[in-house]
């Protein structure tokens, strides 16, 4: 990542060996010793931080730091598993928690690692971009004194004059998009320096700049985006419709700099939900038929239908709506002992296993004279097992609702928050339990009744908007492009020197020597070199071709 220091030093070192071929300025002389101490220390620390070794170490630390994020349950992903872990390891878990190991990706030490890495990256990108910009404008390097010391060499004699031979070589190389530079040499000779493959470093820099861009995109999403979930019951007017305002969410996570005005008040209604399963019980298809009203349409606007599916989110007013979960809601009608209907609505139950055994609670605060409560479970395809009723298939083949009835005080007025899926049984007295089929009515001892009217389906949708999406996607594209360029393009240099033949009987002839040097993938360059030499030989003899 911060190849700069080491790579540049190595390159210049090598190029000194190769006969001063450097296109780049030699590294600045070391700062004078008499600088003030703190400043010198700071400069030294900065140099250390932006060195390749430090970057490698940080890269390695980043990988290491992410490991507990996969090995341990994370609160952000699955708080239930974290709770289970605490229950299973009561001693270890609090210690791990002290080091934020259940919130790794929000932990200060994780942020420290990646921020240091990015500082190190930015610190070396600046000088490196300057150097590359200079290299792009610089002339290709002059031919070294001893071309024959280069790893790839060739030579021949020709009738053409040295200048003509070099000019022909230049024309050929320019056609092949090499950058060339011709220099006159002492003794009537001429030489040509050529270089190709600058895109390698361009790609390299693009890759690293895009990494910073990706971080910016991610940060934008975290700061300005929002995300929330909402449960909707299909076909139910009250609990099946949604308007995009904060109060309509079951669960809402705004970004740190989010402002409520970003919520476009579109609306949608869940009309129908269909789930189909394979015989094995594995899911086959989930389809939620919704209608939605974009906010610009106003209340009297036209509702549009949409088929919401797992890989097909609905995009409306810059927000996206995803289908992220589903389950069953039991539709019950409950009458108090006074005979009046106290509850008539679908009550969502939470699926607990693959076959959608679903648990929940029915709270009837309006039942008179005493409040009623029911807790229990729904088995969509009911089978009897030694340990009680269970579900053998997620579809509704033999649905049964098993409930335990309570009477007394539900505790809803106590001010203590309670789950809608659980009864707080402190103020309640158990009456009776029963398993019901759809349509059955259960008359409770002591008055009141519960009718199991039917089963509805619910879905959970996630609504959100992430303004960082587009920047992150663009940065990802640039990362990939930069990566391919920096790994595929080869930087290579070629020199051609033509000098009048020494008076060894071949007066009037010109000796042409060619030398080549490749930074990477020298095997492939050997082929290219051989082919170039062949072409150069042809063009030298036929310069007007």
């Amino acid at each position, binding site marked *: 990542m911060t*190849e700069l220091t080491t790579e540049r030093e*190595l390159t210049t070192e*090598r190029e000194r*060996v*190769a006969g001063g071929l450097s296109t780049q300025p030699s590294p600045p002389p070391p700062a004078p010793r008499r600088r003030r101490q703190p400043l010198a220390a700071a400069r030294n620390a900065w140099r250390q931080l932006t060195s390749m*070794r430090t*970057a*490698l170490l940080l*890269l*390695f630390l980043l*990988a290491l730091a*992410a*490991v507990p994020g*996969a090995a341990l349950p994370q609160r*952000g*992903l699955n708080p239930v*598993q974290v709770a289970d872990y605490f229950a299973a390891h009561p001693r270890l878990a609090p210690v791990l928690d002290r080091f934020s190991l259940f919130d790794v*990706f929000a932990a200060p030490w994780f942020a420290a690692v990646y921020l240091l890495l990015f500082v190190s990256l930015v610190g070396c990108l600046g000088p490196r971009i300057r150097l590359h910009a200079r290299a792009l404008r610089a002339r290709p390097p002059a031919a070294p004194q001893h071309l*024959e010391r*280069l*790893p*790839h060499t*060739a030579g*021949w*004699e*020709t009738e053409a004059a040295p200048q003509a031979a070099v000019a022909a070589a230049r024309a050929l190389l320019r056609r092949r998009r090499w950058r060339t530079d011709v220099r006159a040499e002492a003794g009537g000779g001429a030489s040509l320096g050529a270089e190709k493959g600058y895109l390698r470093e361009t790609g390299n820099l693009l890759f690293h700049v895009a990494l910073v861009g990706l971080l910016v995109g991610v940060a934008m999403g975290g700061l300005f985006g929002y995300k929330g979930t909402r449960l909707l019951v299909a076909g139910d007017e009250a609990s099946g419709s949604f308007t995009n305002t904060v109060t309509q969410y079951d669960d809402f996570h705004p970004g740190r700099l989010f402002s409520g005005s970003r919520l476009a008040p579109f609306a949608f209604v869940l009309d129908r939900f269909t789930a189909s399963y*394979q015989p094995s019980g*594995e*899911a*086959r*298809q989930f389809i939620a038929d919704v209608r939605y009203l974009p906010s610009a349409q106003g209340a009297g606007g036209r509702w549009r239908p949409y088929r919401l599916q*797992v*890989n097909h*989110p609905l995009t409306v007013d810059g927000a*996206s709506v995803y289908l992220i979960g589903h389950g069953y809601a039991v539709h019950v009608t409950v009458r108090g002992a006074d005979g009046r209907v106290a509850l008539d609505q679908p009550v969502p139950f939470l699926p607990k296993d693959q076959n959608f055994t679903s648990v929940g609670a029915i709270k009837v605060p309006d039942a008179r004279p005493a409040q009623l409560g029911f807790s229990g479970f729904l088995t969509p395809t009911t089978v009897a097992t030694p340990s009680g009723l269970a579900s053998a298939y997620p579809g509704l083949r033999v649905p049964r609702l098993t409930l335990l009835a309570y009477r007394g005080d539900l505790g809803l007025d106590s001010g203590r928050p309670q789950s809608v899926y659980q009864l707080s049984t402190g103020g309640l007295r158990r009456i009776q339990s029963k398993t019901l089929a759809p349509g059955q009515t259960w008359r409770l001892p002591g008055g009141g009744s519960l009718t199991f009217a039917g089963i509805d389906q619910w879905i959970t949708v*996630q609504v959100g908007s*992430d303004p960082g*999406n587009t920047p*992150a*996607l663009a940065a*990802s594209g640039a990362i*990939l492009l930069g*990566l391919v360029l920096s*790994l*595929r393009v080869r*930087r290579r240099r070629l020199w051609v020197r033509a000098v009048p033949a020494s008076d060894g009987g071949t007066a009037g002839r010109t000796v042409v020597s060619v030398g080549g*040097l*490749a*930074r*990477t993938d*020298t*095997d492939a360059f050997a*082929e290219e*070199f*051989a*082919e170039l*030499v*062949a072409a150069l030989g*042809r063009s*030298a003899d036929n310069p007007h071709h």
Partner: protein
Amino acid sequence: MPADATFGSLSNHLLVASMVAYSLAMLGFAAEFSFGRRSALTRVLDRGDSVPVRVAGPAPARVLVGSAGSESRSGSGFEVPAGSSGATSTLPAGPLPGRGAGRPGSEDAAGPPGRLGQAALALTVVGWAVHVGSVVARGFAAHRVPWGNMYEFSSMVALVAVTAFLVLAVRERVRYLGAFVLLPVVLYLGLAGTVLYVPAAPLVPALNSYWIKIHVVAAITATGTFMVSGVVIMLFLLRARYEDRVAAGRPAGVAALAHRLPSAAALDRTSYRVTAFAFPVWTFAVIAGAIWAEAAWGRYWGWDPKETWSFITWVVYAGYLHARTTAGWKGRRAAYLGLLGFAALMVDYYWINIGVSGLHSYSGV
């Protein structure tokens, strides 16, 4: 449906047949590796060798072409081999050689090629073709792309690894790799056919997207080529140890196995080339996965265990590519990073899919 069942069992039979072919080819490669001429296995080039390159030169003149032994260049900079003066040799002008045939080291092509190794290579091609048949039949059995669960994914990864080996074998002389690539391939397929096997079935809704053709294919391609790169890196480490021991005049021990391998520098170059292909593909797989995740789960990155390990794998391989060009990290240290990357990839694949509950629990096991 009976047709599906027919295709399903055809696919299984073909897979077994390809495993048999691969196993026999592996034995052939191993025999050639042990008893054949080294020149049949790889290009014979030793440090400082100067090898003539045939180049078509201009007609009227002598052509002086030289190429310093490529073994002495690490390939990381514009460097000139120390100690070698790049001897040039005089060659008659000749036709421009085709790819591979006239490349450095072709002088050993004079002798009869190793029959055993060629038979093994032919057998590998047969196994490969049968393997392709197995994958296609599986697709017909399931009426969808044949990479929807871990069994199918494993089969595809092995297919890519064999393909990568064959491509390398066509482009350069890498028969020495044969046994070392086919061994993990056969083990991988064995594991897939026993532990991970599930009958053909439709996709779960989360996988039912055209992104499965993009993201998963990229992941398979990267995994298969990383597998080959891991094998070459291991051979590099073995050879580097051998060379060190020989240089120090100590007995080579287990590393003596490596005396028939190409030089450490050549192995290092091959591993880099394979990894430099696989890494961008892996990057693309992760990016495509993020785009798919955005459509399927409503966020492009959520630190799901799969995402986390893919990130770790990416970071470690990025470290490997950087380390190769960093003073003090070149050579063995970089190679260990490369192996670590492959280990991370295997954890990503087996442990995350089977052992950890996350959004990628598609193994069906």
